[in-house]
């Protein structure tokens, strides 16, 4: 029964009942983000080697790569879930855990390190009481470290919510955190 034929009375939900595997993985949530992701997959012609590009887009849309999402992509690209999971966990950029409202990325590259980035990190860790890679319990701030963002001329550098900020000191970092989470 082709729902596209005129005069057909087959409702979309009936079609979904015919394929339980498909329904388990297709999101009936109507979430627009999946449509955008689908369009992106189409742009890359569902090619398996576009996996990393697709994961970037998925993380951009959803904030993080949860298991459901990885399974969805595995199905769409006809890849074993183990492969998708293996690629998602290999690259530092991809996160499988939800991020906080604000992101604080501290650069720990050599130039920043030599200029005292480790002290900035200690101060931030002490204030937020979390380790790099974690999010505060109230989901307000995620702390990440980067290995070099290429801004060595303005070391120590930090990226607050995507904005590269120069010459950080423990105090300036704490000031920024106070803006997000008044103590």
């Amino acid at each position: 029964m082709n729902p596209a034929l005129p005069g057909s009375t087959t409702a979309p939900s009936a079609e979904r009942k015919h394929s339980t595997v498909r329904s388990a993985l297709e999101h009936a949530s109507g979430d627009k983000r999946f449509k955008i992701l689908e369009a992106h997959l189409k742009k890359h012609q569902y090619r398996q080697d576009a996996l990393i590009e697709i994961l970037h887009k998925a993380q951009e849309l959803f904030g993080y790569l949860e298991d459901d999402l990885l399974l969805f992509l595995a199905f769409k690209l006809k890849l074993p879930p183990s492969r998708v999971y293996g690629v998602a966990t290999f690259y530092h950029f991809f996160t499988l855990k939800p991020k906080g409202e604000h992101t604080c990325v501290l650069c720990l590259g050599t130039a920043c390190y030599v200029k005292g980035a480790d002290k900035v990190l200690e101060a931030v860790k002490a204030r937020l009481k979390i380790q790099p890679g974690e999010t505060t319990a109230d989901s307000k701030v995620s702390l990440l470290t980067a290995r070099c963002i290429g801004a060595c001329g303005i070391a120590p550098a930090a990226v607050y919510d995507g904005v590269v900020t120069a010459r950080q000191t423990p105090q300036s970092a704490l000031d920024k955190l106070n803006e997000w989470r008044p103590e």
Partner: protein
Amino acid sequence: MTFLDLVDLRRKHKANAKRIVLRCCMAAGCMSLNSRKVKERLDEAVREAGLAGVVEVRGVGCMKLCCEGPLVQAEPDETLYIKVTPENAPEIIQALKGKPASVPTTNPHAPFFAKQKLIVLANSGRVNPEEIESYIAADGYSALHHALTEMTPKELVETLVKSGLRGRGGAGFPTGLKWGTVAKSPGTKKYVICNADEGDPGAFMDRSVLESDPHCVLEGMAIAAHAVGGDQGFIYIRAEYPLAISRLQIAIRQAKTLGLLGAGIFEAPFSFNVELRIGAGAFVCGEETALMASVEGKRGAPRPRPPFPAESGLWGCPTLINNVETYANVPAIVRNGPDWFASIGAATSKGTKVFALAGKIRNTGLIEVPMGTPVRVIVEEMGGGAPGAACIKAVQTGGPSGGCIPRDLLDTPVDYESLSKLGSIMGSGGMIVMDEGTNMVEIARFFMEFCMDESCGKCAPCRAGTVQMHKLLDRIAARRGTARDLARLEELCDMVKNTSLCGLGQTAPNPTMSTLRFFRQEYEALLQPERHARSFQTEAPVPEAAAR
């Protein structure tokens, strides 16, 4: 696009050029210090002063003296304003009319600038990276035309061989030889890859080139494609460089529109397309086989070579992989000839090298110097030495794969052989200066932690070796290490260096070995006598009674 169209575009751009130009740095460093607002305010101030017909405010790429950003330079008088704020804009415009401004300036002919020899960075800070006509006006794409219409692939390869250009990614493999190998490899489909994964912490040369002069790299890749018989290019760029990615996307689009990329370039039977591939935060993907695995959508795990990418690379096809800086040298070599290039630099290291000078040094930024320049000239004359009253203790080159050059050896010339004799490497160009306040054991531990985190895990020596070396360095740095630990560390360094699968593992011990060679006393000062230390096998402290 024909050659006449190109010449026409160049002529038109030059004819429309305004007498006075205010160049504003719009590379990532200055942008993070609000240089976009500076440019906008300058635009407004020019309009308010009614000088729109005479003054051009041009957004350009890296102007090299990153520590003094945002930078604005006026042409033709060359006044170089530093630490410019948006509020300074009206004053700068008034200065054009002769009223002296109170905005701080610096000498544009200081040694930092005067001692540079610009080939790769020739257009950086001068052309507008988001306007292809700006590049064309600076002789852009004329090298590609010459290569396509007046040189055979064989002649191109010979030109590169004669020039003596060596790969600028760190290993220094002769570029002409690599091109020749790919050209000779059988196969109808060949790929040209640009390695823009600049993962070395402390290096930002490639980022600057891509943000400031992306067309130079595209032109270099197209010339390479003609030489080796490739028609598809990829630029693998790390995700941490969003500005460089966007500038490249703009550049590729503009080049395609003008027919300088795509099919039938300059109406020759040559087609070349370039696609971007974004990395995802893996240092190991700077290694060529890992990079190719990543382009193929897999985990970035290296594989043994042979087969080399030149014979069997991306999807099994012959692939040319070169670094951003290597490609950026190519248009100049084709334009000026190989002998010109070979006349610059040292005996076996020809041409120039771009260094990212950072750390405990007054003048942080980008410099391009002829190969063979002594390190001392770079850090003391150009860099201005360490800030405050501090003395330079060591200069680190080559990032986590490199080593340090101590104070007494600063007269070492910067060339591939001299640096490797000292146990360091040229690397991609990161040069970190350290002063007396820097603890060399900490530095070794820092680099080992990096290699440990970035190890892909495929081969045991690197996967397990970096962890154990890091543990030992940790213990020694925390004053819990013994002479036995130090001996074990040296053994491990040797083993990991000689048995790892790829360059990451093979060079991970370098910083440790280098600091041991020149700063052994710092390690030895931290060692404890055997009976006070923990045993190697267990983590529990050995009680005093049991040890006796």
